[in-house]
């Protein structure tokens, strides 16, 4: 290439920013997981006393928002929630101006969820405080991938050689993109499964060793981990998928779970829609770790916040 690509480019994100799994180094992922194992929300040291964490949410969220908030408060941080409705965002303030405003108020870190892919990157390039991605459009959801790895490792010895089937709306899923990066990096064999509208062939290019199949049986055979995804109706612009067809071919039923290894675990980033991507029986069954995932979200996010604010000791 004859010209160097943008030299002027953008400032580096502040140390401690968590923008994506893809940009994390292996050793950073390992130390975050290690740190998460040492975190206990009920017996936490006040690592973040007097530190201000702003939760900036441009999209609805139950799990992620409340677990980041509880994580921050468990570490004695001061938290403020800013949502797009009821703030100046409604009046047309740009993302960067909102960022500058929050910085001026004294934010030490910003946790951001945004419907546009790359929004946390934009903010991180222009602010000198850590920016933590709590889900950006269809791009990534790094804290979810970390808590999923945390959850898997509570039940499996190692990620290496693990067979993971991810089933459902891969295309719209930021959770899947983050999980694919993390799991394949540590040697898991990941199979993506669903109809072409949800799992385009191109999905296999995301990370080395990814496989795509349309056949649920093929994805489940020998699986150690079954990850299910919600059908994201809010992102289905222009897609024509008949729910009944999807349920017939891909819904996770108790009978289908039996195709996987006997000790396979069933995961789902939530919110789950019972009767759609999985049956009641599977959601509440003995192999389901869906509630564990939510539970593990708190120590994982405590680790992320402590790391972001330089208190990861």
């Amino acid at each position: 290439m004859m010209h160097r690509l943008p030299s002027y480019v953008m400032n580096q994100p502040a140390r401690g920013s968590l923008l994506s799994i893809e940009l994390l180094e292996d050793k950073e992922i390992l130390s975050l997981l290690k740190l998460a194992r040492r975190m206990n929300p009920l017996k936490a040291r006040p690592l973040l006393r007097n530190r201000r964490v702003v939760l900036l949410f441009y999209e609805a969220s139950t799990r992620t928002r409340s677990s980041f908030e509880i994580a921050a408060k468990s570490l004695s941080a001061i938290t403020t929630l800013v949502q797009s409705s009821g703030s100046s965002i409604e009046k047309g303030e740009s993302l960067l101006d909102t960022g500058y405003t929050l910085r001026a108020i004294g934010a030490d870190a910003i946790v951001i969820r945004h419907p546009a892919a790359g929004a946390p990157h934009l903010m991180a390039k222009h602010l000198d405080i850590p920016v933590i991605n709590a889900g950006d459009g269809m791009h990534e959801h790094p804290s979810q991938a970390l808590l999923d790895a945390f959850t898997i490792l509570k039940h499996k010895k190692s990620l290496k050689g693990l067979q993971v089937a991810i089933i459902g709306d891969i295309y719209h899923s930021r959770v899947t993109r983050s999980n694919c990066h993390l799991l394949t990096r540590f040697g898991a064999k990941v199979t993506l499964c669903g109809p072409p509208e949800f799992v385009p062939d191109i999905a296999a290019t995301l990370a080395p060793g990814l496989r795509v199949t349309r056949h649920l049986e093929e994805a489940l055979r020998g699986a150690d981990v079954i990850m299910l995804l919600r059908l994201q109706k809010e992102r289905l612009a222009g897609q024509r998928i008949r729910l009944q067809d999807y349920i017939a071919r891909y819904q996770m039923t108790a009978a289908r779970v039996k195709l996987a290894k006997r000790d396979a675990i069933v995961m789902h980033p939530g919110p789950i829609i019972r009767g759609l991507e999985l049956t009641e029986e599977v959601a509440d069954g003995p192999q389901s770790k869906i509630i564990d995932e939510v539970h593990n979200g708190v120590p994982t996010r405590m680790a992320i916040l402590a790391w972001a604010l330089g208190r990861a000791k």
Partner: protein
Amino acid sequence: MADDKSRTRSLLIKGGHLIDPAAKINAPMDILLRDGRVAEIALPNKIRGSADEKFEARGLIVAPGFIDLHVHLREPGQGYKETIASGTAAAAAGGFTSVCTMPNTSPVVDNPEWVEWLKHPGRGALVNVFPIAAATLNSRGAALTDFAALQRAGAVAVTDDGKPILDDEIMRAALRLGAELNLPVVQHAEDTRLTENASMNEGPTSFRLGLRGMSAAAEANIVDRDVALAQQIRESRLHVAHLSTAEALKAVRRGKRGVHNARVTCRVTCEVTPHHFTLLDENVGEYDTNFKMNPPLRSASDREAILVALADGTVDAIATDHAPHATHEKQVEFERASFGITGLETALALAITKLHREQEIALTRIVELFTAGPARVFDLRGRGSLVRGHFADVTIFDPKKRWTFEAAKSRSLSHNTPFDGGQFTGKVVATIVGGKMVYRAG
């Protein structure tokens, strides 16, 4: 501009190497310009007439003035992005002596009054401005504009650039009317039914970034349809703007081969931008909005096909699609950022660096793509070649000069370029419009 009193009456360009593909000249030649026209072309030291001024062009290439078929100068209505004065200053610095302006301004240039306004000396243009008018009223794609009146006012083509003419019947009617008037219809080929909310090329990079992608088919479908329509209409003229995919090139090739029914002769032409022959979709990196434009940067195989088509003659012109935007329109979420990049000042450098030095395409072909090629596409008479009596529009450049482009020093009001800090070979040294020097490298 031809009446500008400050113009030097005569100018002798001495000692340069003339490349004039239309005249089939590729040799050392001296050129005498007088009263806005080419007065004489002769072997070195053979010009007898005297000149008020001399330009020493030793070691430099002298070429017909470059013509850009596709620029957005943003006036009327969006002077905060660019003005005709600032945009044509950038054009002059890039070696362009003529620019064709796109009508998607505010308001849209869909009537003769706005065409005349664009051409008015009061706009302060440094180079020739050839307006392209809207093909449909307000570019809504519903009712054709008055092509004849627009042409009389000075429009050199019609288009709804920024969006396509989707409706088959409207496109057919536009090509028919264009055929009657010998007026090219320029199409921004994008099936917008397939590109809703998309912000980059569809491929591994868009999947990785979680961005909705524009497929190659969304471009090719429209070019396919347009070529098929053009081939049914005698004397029709279809020009495909900023072509970006291998699939669309196939359709253009089909259009250029013509049809079996020899009575139907249509002219299908196309242009390619420097960024599409230089960059790939993966260069978007981590959401750099200076790599966001429409059509988007494409895959390596698309770029490969474009490079072949530039070399083999399928592509008629290099056009910049110069699309200035203010910082606040680019420093936003990628999906919300405006499409487009500036391009006037880097076009020649990219062509020489990428096409000539890397791809070994001859300089004569590159000059053709900036001169005779575009002049033919819009029938710009007296331009694109330096024969006696033609307009004294000349571009002089140093094909070996190494330099670094700095966006902050751009003459454009906007700095939305992916090439800031780019190191190039090939630089414009002087730009002459109607015999008057409008740019001289410092």
